[in-house]
Each structure stands twice: as structure tokens, then as C-alpha cells.
């Protein structure tokens, strides 16, 4: 086994800001984001590609940043939870939805849920409940039972589309 690998320079655009850093090839993107960039909103849950807490948006795709090396993200554009709020600092429709609909309890899964839902709504601005559930299947929540997360995303979709949020009949 190679004992030491040379560090490589990487640069990328994170939440609209050009950043760079020196990483070992084996540095996972999530560690680069949390430790080098000090953006600790992106969480590490399982480290095994299951939970989705580490989800970020890379070049328009939701990616589990624990399952990609930072060197692979060289040159890419990344949005983390810190880049989700509106430009004026107010809550985005999704963030507002999670707050209004109680889409979180402990909050550990929330950054991943919101960044994933952000991409889901870009691809499918008016998803059905089933499409939402299928679309967030890569994100686990141990608290909410998902009901309120689904509602939060429905709330955001309605707000973005300018339609009225319909509380699903119980």
C-alpha cells in the first residue's frame, strides 16, 4: 500500500463562492466541506451511503458527499444547506415549509432533506405525495415518521408555484 499520497489542489464554487484547498486523494467531499470549508451544516450520519444526511447539490444533481472524493468535485459547483436561503437571507420556501409544517424534530436529517428536496422540486415542480416519497427515499429520518417532511415539501411546492397549499385529508 502507498503510505502517503501527494496532496492535490482542488478548487470549486461552493454556495456561489470560489474556494480551494489542498486535499489527499482519499479525502471525502463531506470532510472537505465540513473541515476545510468549515461548512458544518452538511451532516455525517451513517458514512455508508444510506442516510442522505450528507446530501449536497453538485452541478445540478443530489449527491451523498460521503461517497465522493473531494478531488472528484474539482471544478464543480456545489450548493450546501448554507446556500439554500434566499439571497436576502430570508428563509427559502423549503426552509419555511419545514418550519411551518414541523418537518423536523432533532434536525439531524434536515440539511440533507432540504438540499435533496431542493433538487427534487427543480426537476418536478409539482410532485404528487408519492413522487415526493420516492424522491426522498435516499434520506432517512429517525424522528418525524416523514409525514411532516412530505407536508413541508408540499408547502414549498405550493408556495413556489403560487398555488394554495392543500393539507392532505387525514
Amino acid at each position, binding site marked *: *500500500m*502507498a*503510505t*502517503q*499520497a*501527494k496532496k*492535490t489542489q482542488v478548487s470549486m464554487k461552493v454556495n456561489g463562492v470560489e474556494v480551494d484547498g489542498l486535499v*489527499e*486523494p*482519499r479525502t*471525502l467531499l463531506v470532510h472537505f466541506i465540513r473541515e476545510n470549508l468549515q461548512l458544518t451544516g452538511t451532516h455525517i450520519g451513517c*458514512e*455508508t*451511503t*444510506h442516510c*442522505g444526511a450528507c*446530501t449536497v447539490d453538485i452541478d445540478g*444533481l*443530489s*449527491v*451523498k458527499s460521503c*461517497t*465522493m*472524493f473531494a*478531488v*472528484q468535485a474539482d471544478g464543480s459547483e456545489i450548493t450546501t444547506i448554507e446556500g439554500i436561503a434566499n439571497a436576502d437571507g430570508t428563509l427559502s420556501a423549503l426552509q419555511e415549509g419545514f418550519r411551518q409544517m414541523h418537518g423536523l424534530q432533532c434536525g439531524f436529517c434536515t440539511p440533507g432533506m432540504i438540499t*435533496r428536496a431542493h433538487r*427534487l422540486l427543480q426537476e418536478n415542480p409539482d410532485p404528487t405525495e408519492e413522487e415526493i416519497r*420516492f*424522491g*426522498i*427515499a*435516499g434520506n432517512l429520518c429517525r424522528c418525524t415518521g416523514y409525514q411532516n417532511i412530505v407536508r413541508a415539501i408540499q408547502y414549498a411546492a405550493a408556495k413556489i408555484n403560487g398555488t394554495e397549499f392543500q393539507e392532505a385529508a387525514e
Partner: protein
Amino acid sequence: MIPGHFTYHRPASMADAIKLLSDLGEEARPLAGGHSLIPMMKLRLATPEHLIDLHAVEGLKGIRQEGDNIVIGAMTTQHELLASDVIASSLPILRETALLIADPQVRYRGTIGGNVANGDPGNDMPALMMTLGATYRLEGPDGVREEAAGDFYQGAYFTSLEPGEILTAVSVPAQPPGHGYAYEKLKRKIGDYATAAAAVVLTMSGGKVATCSIGLTNLSETPLLAEDAARAVIGTVLDDASLKRAAEAAITIMSPAGDGRGPVEYRKHVGGIMVERALKRAAARAA
């Protein structure tokens, strides 16, 4: 969970990738979507000294029709398969199967080439490729060769890829209009590997099965083609007795591991049920 040290290579051409892979030898691995390899590296079950990332190699992505075949570049992601009109119309079973693989984040990164080349018995595409009669394009230091999916798998994580070779495309015969298809996958939870799964493509004529092919996932060290099971239904109207015969014939070739997905007997039993369900659903779809 941090992988061991390795040197990262990002060649821009196939020639460079093959040269690197053959020069660096056993300690080098190609990196596609990384959603099998990186988790294995974190567990130190894989400790390559060199990773050859294929993302910058030209020409490894895309889906195109070539004569009667659909040719899919190895670096095409599951997400791109799902977005393709060609796949939806000519190979709908690929779409059905891709939707059952892992979760959205994994499908954005996971590639068809990685799925079929890794030799993981839990992967869904290999049995499907055997069922569809696909061939793989393998490029290496000695040139290009085509290998039938059915000859490719030799054991768990053991394939006929030669040192220095990279799987660069899969070529799948377009299925005739009116064919029936189904991929039935039993899994413990969304995103899981199959406890048992069966792929069926068939054509019907005058209410009877005219042609049929059946593949099995995660029921042996390699994907399986259940030829006797397919023969058991050809010429029948898929009555209960022939469905039973097909399931029994399929069960005789299964040798699943007893693991967290269930004991051997259970996995064979549900494997038979997957075969019956896939046959019925495929027939119902056939014109």
C-alpha cells in the same frame, strides 16, 4: 471510515486509461460512479493503490441506436437511463429495473458500466443483461473485444475482464414492439439489494408464450439465466401448472447465500414466487 491512501488519476482518453490500468497492474482500479467501490474502500475491503477515474474520458456516456441494438456508454448513469426516451420505448424493462436500484442520489452517480462490470451478485443489471442477450464491449491493451453477458460472470466479483481491460459499453438488442417484460424484486426496504429478483421478457402469439427469457438476481454467486424455466412456459397459456413448473425449474438452479436477507430455503422459495409474478406481469403487458 476513511479509505486507505491511493493515487488519483483522471485520464482524458480511453487510450490513457488503458495504459494506466495496464502499467499500474493489479493495484489499480477504474473508478466509475464509485457507489460500490468507495463504500468498499471505506471498509478497507478494497485497498487499491491507484484509482483511475473515468469521468473525464471522452465518449463513454450516451445512449444510441445502432441497427437493432441500443448501445449504452458505460459511464451513463442510472438517472440518465431513466431520462432516456430510447430506453423507455425500446427497453422499458431497463427503466423499470433502474427505478428499483438504490435511491435517487445513488442513481445520479451510479453507472450502468459499474453495475454490470463489478460482478456483485446483488447488482440488478447483470441478470437483466443476460435475459436480454446483451453483449459487453471490453477495451484493453490488446484491442477491443465483445463478450456476451452470459459468458462474463464467473463468480462473486469475478468476471472475464482481463488485466488492463475496461468495460466501455453495453449493447442490448432492442425488444420487439408488443413484447412483455417485468422485473420483480423482493427487497427488505427501498434501496436494498434483492432478497430475490427475476427478470422476464417474452412475446405472446395467439394467447400462448412464443419466446421467453428469464434471469435471476442475487440467487447465486453470479446472475443466472433460467433456461429450463423459460422452456417450461413456451407454448403454454401460462396456466397455473406451467407457472409452477417454471418456478420449480428456476429453484433447482438457485444457490443463494443464507444471510441477513433470509435463510437459503426462504430465498429460494421467494425466488420462485418472483419468477411466477414476473411471468404473469410480463404476459399481461404483451400485445
